[in-house]
């Protein structure tokens, strides 16, 4: 241990001696390099801003988007829930991690566990890799770990960027199929609830009969009426404010209004309970 410390100290003593004897002054050559690079950075930022502005047209629809995206989105509206949440690109890797870890058992790994471990490992790096060797080819373990990290981050970022969110219109087409398969086609309230379910953004995180996308660890809801069996009113309470039930990930959908929530609750309670019909399958048109 002591020998290693002495070795490191000897390196730094040699370094200081070398810098003193054959180093060059920071000004002007190194400073010139820094200045050129800084100017390039400023030019790059200005160029991105100009391209962003001049390839996009004013407006908030996707058609107004330029090479670098829209100038502005629509004003936030807590009432509309058919919006797909998207983080900035440098959080895409986290965004995708949440698709890998499923709610509720392991979602904490994706939200807190892995990011915390990653930061701690980064901070601890100089204390894990204590050899004085600095040449990349003689640090096979460190270099392999670095390359694997870069590949992992790259793949997660790419997957997060290209993750396809289902469109409301695509999901809506599926409603008659669900109604037939789940056996609630004769219950108009449940069918209306299915339409709401398909459109208001539930399927950005939940899957149903193999459609939708599994996001943020949200569960599949194909048989939620059987597995959860909260009853219509119970589902309405849950969806209105999931945090009351210890679910802090799912947003509140209270803004849908009582009528829509009742339809949605009927649909959820019907899922998995109507075919074959059990006594927890909600009656047609009823509460």
């Amino acid at each position, binding site marked *: 241990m002591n020998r290693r410390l002495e070795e*490191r*100290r*000897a*390196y*730094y003593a*040699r*370094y*200081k001696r070398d*810098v003193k004897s*054959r*180093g*060059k*002054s*920071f*000004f*002007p050559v*190194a*400073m010139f*390099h820094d200045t*050129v*690079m800084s100017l390039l*950075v*400023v030019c790059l*930022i200005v160029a*991105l*801003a*100009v391209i*962003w*502005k001049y390839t996009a047209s*004013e407006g908030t629809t996707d058609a107004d988007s330029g090479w670098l995206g829209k*100038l*502005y*989105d*629509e*004003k*936030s*509206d*807590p009432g509309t829930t058919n*919006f797909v*949440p998207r*983080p*900035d690109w*440098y*959080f895409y890797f986290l965004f995708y991690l949440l698709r890998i870890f499923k709610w509720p058992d392991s979602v*904490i790994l994706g*939200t*807190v566990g892995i990011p915390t471990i990653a930061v701690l490992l980064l901070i601890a790096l*100089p204390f894990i*890799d204590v*050899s004085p060797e*600095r*040449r*990349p080819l003689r*640090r096979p373990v*460190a270099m392999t770990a670095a390359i694997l990290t870069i590949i992992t981050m790259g793949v997660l970022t790419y997957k997060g960027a290209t993750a396809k969110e289902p469109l409301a219109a695509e999901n809506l087409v599926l409603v008659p199929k669900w109604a037939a398969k789940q056996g609630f086609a004769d219950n108009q309230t449940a069918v209306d609830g299915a339409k709401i379910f398909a459109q208001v953004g539930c399927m950005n995180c939940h899957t149903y009969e193999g459609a939708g996308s599994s996001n*943020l660890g949200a569960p599949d809801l194909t048989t939620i009426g059987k597995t959860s069996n909260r009853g219509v009113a119970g589902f309405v309470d849950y969806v209105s404010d999931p*945090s009351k039930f210890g679910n*802090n*990930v799912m947003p*509140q959908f209270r803004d849908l209004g009582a009528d829509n929530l009742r339809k949605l609750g009927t649909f959820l309670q019907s899922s998995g309970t109507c075919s074959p019909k059990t006594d927890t399958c909600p009656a047609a048109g009823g509460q």
Partner: protein
Amino acid sequence: MAKQKPSRLDQLVYLLMYPLNWLEERSSIPGRSGLVGGVKYFLFRKVPSDISWGHTLGSAALTAFIVQAVTGVILAMYYKPDPNSAYESIRNITDNLWAGWLVRGMHKWGASVFIILLFLHMGRVFLYGAYKYPRELNWIVGVLILVLGMLEGFFGYLLPWDQTAYWATVVGVNLQATGPFVGPFLGDVLRGGAEIGPDTLARFYSLHMLVLPGALIALILLHLWLVVRIGVSSPPWSPDEFGRPQPGPPPAPRKGLVEPAPRNGRLVAPVGRGARRR
């Protein structure tokens, strides 16, 4: 005194230092303010002669941060952190203000450039093994700068108060609330209540433009101070890497023998002694 014509470089240095010398001469303790000394130390400190463009990534990231600070200050003059007017104030900046779109665009894209440069800079430091003794502390400071830089992105994302901003933040804050022990508490503190609303926006604005930039500036100054004090590492594959043990006899005694030679004009004795030693 024989007048020697100063070289072009000397003239440039004189011009650059003139305002500082002026200030120093007029401060209360002439020659002791440390201003001229500090700047001279910074500019004329010796660095390894084999450093190259790879070493400019850190100052490039600093430049991107300065762009963020300047454009951020301008945006703060016109932005209104209130749900009823935040979105409209952004539209106003983009559409009506002279060059407002440029300032907003530079702030928006400068954030990405800053993050990319932080990662590239970190990659360069990793490749050079420059996080090793005695630069461990500066590596840790750098990691903290990266984490705070990404948090800046997270808190700044809500400010335009558009659909993307709102819903990404709903999910983001809810995710933090899944954390153990402090998670739900942290979620409530960030939201300033049960739902994302006026209090959330004010909190995010304060964090984005006061707390985090303050912490970042302090960490960046510490980072730079450590860089200047400890010195940058030369590329480990460089043929005359600074700090690498020289092959052959230890160089220290040889240097001691050769150095006095020209001063004393006694060339014979040291060389002879050196030769005998070998």
